[in-house]
């Protein structure tokens, strides 16, 4: 028992460390992020002044980088749902140290994604018209509904399991930290003292939420795909689109989670809790979803390519041979095949390997969104020369600003809120110590530990 409490103390100390100590490097990072965000805001002010004419978009390719980034961010937001809800439902114990990070990525990615839709509007001053005059016939309204529901649900789903940890912060930090922090933790902990009734309510609430959030998450990326699939355009004309987008969303969500996990683990020295096991398991998930994506791509491209309806020939040509060929081939090989190879080969199945695979997947999935949006619009509808699109400096700047906002929100979050689900980790640890029954999952754990043991 003595060792257990020592273990618990060490866990709490690790969880508290980011909040209590802040170095110069942190402020340097925040400075860089704020600078990039500021540059993006400047670019947006230019766009507000002159209109969307400062972008590369025109009548024939009327959506571009912004909409691609919107789809990408909404995809990333599936990190939280997958890890916390799906793995919670399937009772995968190894997930506990990474849930908090995953859930926060969800919330931040949704905020960033939604802002890119507003950035893309020709009349952002009229954005409230969506609520005032909204029509249920429009896929955009489905999106507004799904994304606001998902954002609300994700914030609740981030907050509720965090209550005991906020109470821990309140108890440990009162008197040792600034007044606004003490006030924040006291308010957010909503009187948690860990008694039986409270625990029971908490667990019931989490159970309800994790089941509710899964269909919401699936619906979100399905209706995002319907923005495209509901139009009369050959490359987007696919009943598979919803499922394809959801799979891609979870795929990129896992990848971004692995990257953020690796960074936070290094910066805040979480090696004891976020171990090679978490990386290897998430790597397996990544490989599984890469396989699903390969399947979806084959099914999608083969059906178009076999029949070669009007426009399909043009589309496949621009994907495989012409304008989009470098991007598309990178996506297929670097983003779908390479991650599987990296994760499946024992030599590369390490933390570093999985992180490299995740970076490849993240870049490739952004490229995929970009190619879907732009190539879909590029197929000529009437007898005209197909248009071309290249993002301008304004678009790239706003894009960089969006990424900076994503990074900034996560950076600041780690300084205010517990990045490890302390109580859940402790509970799992206790359960493992008191009942070391050799389950199938435990055997898998051992296999993964030995596989990734070197790092």
């Amino acid at each position, binding site marked *: 028992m003595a060792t257990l409490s020592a273990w618990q103390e060490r866990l709490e100390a690790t969880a508290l460390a980011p909040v209590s100590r802040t170095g110069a490097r942190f402020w340097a990072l925040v400075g860089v992020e704020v600078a990039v965000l500021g540059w993006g805001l400047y670019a947006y002010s230019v766009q507000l002044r002159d209109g969307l004419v400062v972008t590369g978009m025109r009548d024939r390719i009327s959506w571009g980088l912004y909409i691609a980034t919107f789809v990408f961010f909404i995809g990333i937001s599936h990190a939280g749902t997958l890890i916390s809800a799906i793995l919670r439902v399937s009772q995968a114990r190894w997930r506990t140290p990474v849930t908090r990070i995953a859930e926060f990525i969800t919330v931040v990615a949704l905020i960033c994604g939604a802002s890119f839709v507003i950035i893309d509007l020709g009349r952002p001053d009229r954005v409230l018209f969506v609520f005032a005059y909204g029509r249920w016939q429009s896929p955009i309204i489905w999106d507004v509904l799904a994304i606001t529901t998902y954002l609300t649900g994700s914030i609740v789903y981030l907050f509720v399991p965090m209550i005991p940890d906020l109470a821990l912060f309140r108890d440990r930090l009162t008197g040792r930290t600034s007044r606004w922090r003490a006030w924040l933790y006291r308010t957010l902990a909503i009187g948690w003292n860990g008694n039986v009734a409270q625990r029971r309510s908490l667990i019931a609430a989490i*159970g309800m939420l994790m089941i509710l959030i899964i269909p919401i998450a699936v619906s979100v990326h399905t209706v995002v795909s319907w923005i495209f699939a*509901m139009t009369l355009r050959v490359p987007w004309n696919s009943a598979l689109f919803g499922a394809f987008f959801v799979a891609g969303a979870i795929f990129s969500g896992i990848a971004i989670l692995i990257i953020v996990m690796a960074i936070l683990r290094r910066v805040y020295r979480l090696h004891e809790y976020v171990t090679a096991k978490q990386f290897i398991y998430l790597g397996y998930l990544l490989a599984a979803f890469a396989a699903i994506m390969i399947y979806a791509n084959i099914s999608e491209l083969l059906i178009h390519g076999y029949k070669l309806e009007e426009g399909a020939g043009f589309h496949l040509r621009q994907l495989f041979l012409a304008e989009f060929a470098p991007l598309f081939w990178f996506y297929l090989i670097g983003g779908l095949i390479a991650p599987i190879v990296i994760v499946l080969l024992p030599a590369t199945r390490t933390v570093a390997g999985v992180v490299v695979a995740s970076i490849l997947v993240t870049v490739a999935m952004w490229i995929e969104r970009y190619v879907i949006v732009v190539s879909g619009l590029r197929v000529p509808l009437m007898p005209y020369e197909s248009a071309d699109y290249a993002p301008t400096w304004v678009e790239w700047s706003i894009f960089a600003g969006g990424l900076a906002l994503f990074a900034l929100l996560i950076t600041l979050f780690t300084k205010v809120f517990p990045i490890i689900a302390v109580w859940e980790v402790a509970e799992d640890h206790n359960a493992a110590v008191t009942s070391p029954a050799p389950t199938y999952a435990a055997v898998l754990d051992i296999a993964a530990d030995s596989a990734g043991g070197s790092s």
Partner: protein
Amino acid sequence: MEEKKGQDVPGLPDVGLSRRRVLLSLVAPGMDRPPAQSGEGQGGEGLPAEAATPEAPPRALGGKIGRRRLLRMVGLGALAIAPMPILPELIRSAVAQPAEPPRGRRDPARTRDGRIRQWTMIIDLRSCDGCQGVGGPPRCTTACVEGHLAPEPMEWIQVFEEELPGGGTRFVPTPCMQCQNPPCNNVCPVGATFSTPEGTVLIDQDRCIGCRICMAACPYDRRFFNWGEPPTPPQARLADYSPEHQVPARKGTVMKCDFCPDMARAGTLPYCVQGCPNQAIYYGDLEEDVATNGRVVVAASRFLAENDAFQLKDELGTEPRVYYIPGHGEAVGRDAFSRGRAPTEWPWTEVSEGSVTWQR
């Protein structure tokens, strides 16, 4: 499942209780049962209800509290949802301009016996040579641009040169098809683009939020966006705006051919019909079955049937109101192999201050 429930807690309305138990055991097997059992949870379905029964007493208490709390939650939830129906109205009153923008005419145009007119356009491709005969840019486009003060580079009626299957080309003047199943109309999130009783599709530029999903949805490439401050002549500022008369153009909104119903009601033919030197474009009313190119009047249905009329991309099910008579300008002496037409010009791009032009 139901029999089991009855056995556990006889005679109790325990739906909430057992659901709660299911949830509990699903979520955290390690919390409400001895830890040794927690490993079994992997299977998922089946075990919950029975597995939790031995610990009935404390749970029963929890169930009672839960029910009361549930009632409170339902009450609060109802309070939160109650204002939802009036929420759009509240936001509308907050964002709307003092006067509601004109949404087309309140009274549709009618025939003399009171039936609503159904505007249509018939384009006789036999008489269209892309204005190769008269020289210069297509006159229909020029007339439209000058009549509507359309910003560069918008060609609301655009003359495409289409390859013919056996070689050679034909010219296809293409206005908005005024679909009866308009894909653009369906996808608009705010109802800025809408169908009128007369069968035309209009855009309210005071409502449009510039999301451009209608441009993605239109299969005819007939929608145009004001990417910047639209280049229009100074006199456009004096015009009285309405969705039927989209002057002056507004930055950040979508525009297109409005089918000139305001002109038809005033007894004038649309600019493109007036502008065509070969009288290739007929405008009319399907309800009264009449159409004219300004020189002759035809019975629309008979004219369409006898000349093998077709619609653009009718296989998409958009049901256009614009019909074509097949041809390649032979009636005005055009050779199918004489290619090319002059580009359209916008006379006011230089006089319009503070505006920028862009490529299509």
